[in-house]
């Protein structure tokens, strides 16, 4: 029996497994794990980009972040509102669109192509596009709204309109993602339960509620998990649309850390903010993962 084990303590299969993951693991270690450790180290230091003294200051930076009114009143609520609203609305719209498209009709291929666009175009471009369409003076949408007789909205000069614009952009980008995945899932469902429901004289809404949704549940849960993790770290759209403004009122967590590092040039505090975000995500992520596993077992 011992012949199977070498001096490394791994058998032939385990060595092959390690060999397969080795390149990925090395890259991950060097360019993700080590930087994260460096960041954690930096978060306990006074570390300015212009004057890197790197004095150890203990948890001072964390305390500073947690007592920063911008972080508490703007960043945290913004991040969570963005995550929850964007994921929720895109999921709802995605379900609606997927059910709409889950039938043959003339031009379906065209529609499917169109809804792929938001996914393939860079968020930076999308945000630019939105910024231009919602421009307070010449934006097509602003002008269209005033044609309808609605009051002018200065989209980018107040907190909530700016934030709404961020959320709208995010929903515009991610609704198609939900649509495509859910549409694929719907097309993969077995037809028998739907036929049985129709024979049982169920209304379309009832079929959707009682048959489609429960069968899609595993897919929906995984989608929400993936999306929630990504929505939490949204940066591109916010940075291009508002830059966190006006008056830092639309900053989300990634923008906050970026501003600390590259506007205030305070790497130490930025690292602390980033660390807090990572910790929150770790809890949320592991929690969600447990939830997913449990719901998968149930279904």
């Amino acid at each position, binding site marked *: *029996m011992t*012949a*199977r084990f070498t001096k490394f303590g791994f*058998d*032939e*299969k385990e060595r092959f497994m390690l060999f397969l993951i080795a390149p990925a693991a090395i890259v991950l270690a060097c360019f993700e794990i080590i930087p994260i450790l460096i960041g954690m180290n930096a978060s306990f230091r006074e570390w300015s980009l212009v004057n890197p003294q790197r004095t150890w200051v203990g948890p001072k930076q964390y305390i500073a972040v947690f007592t920063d009114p911008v972080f508490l009143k703007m960043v945290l609520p913004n991040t969570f509102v963005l995550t929850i609203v964007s994921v929720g609305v895109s999921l709802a719209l995605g379900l609606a669109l997927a059910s709409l498209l889950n039938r043959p009709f003339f031009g379906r291929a065209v529609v499917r192509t169109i809804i792929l666009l938001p996914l393939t175009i860079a968020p930076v471009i999308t945000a630019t596009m939105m910024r231009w369409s919602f421009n307070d003076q010449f934006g097509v949408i602003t002008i269209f709204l005033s044609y309808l007789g609605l009051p002018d909205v200065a989209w980018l000069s107040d907190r909530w309109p700016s934030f709404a614009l961020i959320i709208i952009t995010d929903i515009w980008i991610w609704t198609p993602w939900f649509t495509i995945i859910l549409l694929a899932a719907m097309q993969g469902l077995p037809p028998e339960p739907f036929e049985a429901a129709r024979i049982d004289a169920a209304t379309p809404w009832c079929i959707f509620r009682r048959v489609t949704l429960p069968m899609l549940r595993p897919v929906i849960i995984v989608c929400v998990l993936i999306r929630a993790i990504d929505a939490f770290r949204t940066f591109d759209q916010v940075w291009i649309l508002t830059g966190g403004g006006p008056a830092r009122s639309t900053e989300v967590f990634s923008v906050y850390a970026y501003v600390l590092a590259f506007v205030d040039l305070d790497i130490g505090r930025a690292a602390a903010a980033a660390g807090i975000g990572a910790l929150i995500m770790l809890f949320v992520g592991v929690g969600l993962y447990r939830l997913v596993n449990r719901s998968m077992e149930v279904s």
Partner: protein
Amino acid sequence: MAEVILQDVVKKYGTFKVVHEVNLNIAAGEFVVLVGPSGCGKSTTLRMIAGLENISAGTIRIGDKVVNDLPPKDRDIAMVFQNYALYQHMTVFDNLAFGLRNRKVPETEIRSEVTRATQMLGLEPLLARKPFQLSGGQQQRVALGRCIVRRPQVFLFDEPLSNLDAKLRAQMRIEIKALRERVPTTSVYVTHDQVEAMTLGDRVVVMKDGWIQQIGTPLQIYNRPANRFVASFIGAPAMNFIGVELVEELGVMSAHAKDFKVELSLDQAAVLRKHGAKTVTLGIRPEHVRLGTPTNNTGSSFTGVVNVTEQLGSELVIALNVGGSTIMASRISPETEVSPHARVQMWVDGKELQLFDDKTEIAIR
């Protein structure tokens, strides 16, 4: 051709044992079938012989080599998989040649080996096709061909016919049987289908929950099942089991249940007396439950109420209610007129009965 010997082979996943100390000697050229319900460890055993699973303890020998630590490629075996496992991106010819090319066989020899196999299996017109252009039966034939060209020491079959429809399965079964004659090679064949086990195997190994239940020729397994599980697993319709009380009167032992009484033979009585139990389980093959009155002096008759009849054309199967328990009778002449709910007289021959211990379920002999 080589013998395959399994000695105390164990497979554990973590602390969970899926295969318990398997001991099995397969002679060179022998065709052995491992049969059992799903999860009984038969596939795992096969995969351990193939080297696709590590063994947790014990030894496996192929020929005179211990192969415990050899990777599959060095064991000189060939395997047919349930889903054929053809290489989807290669033509039939390349599929057949793949194993030989890996072994650096000269191309001319490969060509002649492939020709031999394709002629044997009728694959000539398909050589240039890709697997997805073949029917299930054709794919399985290619998978067989892949084994033949290699001329390995051992063939391993992992439920090769279970993806085919019933008609094709019967046909392929015959082809495999015919192939055995033309390419005699030690073979281990895993199936959950008792018909395949009975028709193909020189010897059959019945497994359950990781334990070998019985090893024997098909007839031994059928006629002298080692325990109640083997008796119930082999044979269709399944064997009838009745819990009976043993009564001895004037030197004659008989088995009693409600509305049911069978006289046992002297040999059986002697064995049971030695065994000592007062109640045992009686096993009766459905074909041994006959309609009418006994035609010999060891028969005992009883009556039952017809529940359901199944007309198969070649035979009639009757499900009877005898004192609350169901007894199946098969091989009744299909012309027989039996109406449901009728009370009919049946008989069984005491000599044809199997006896099992109530608790251990082991055959009493």
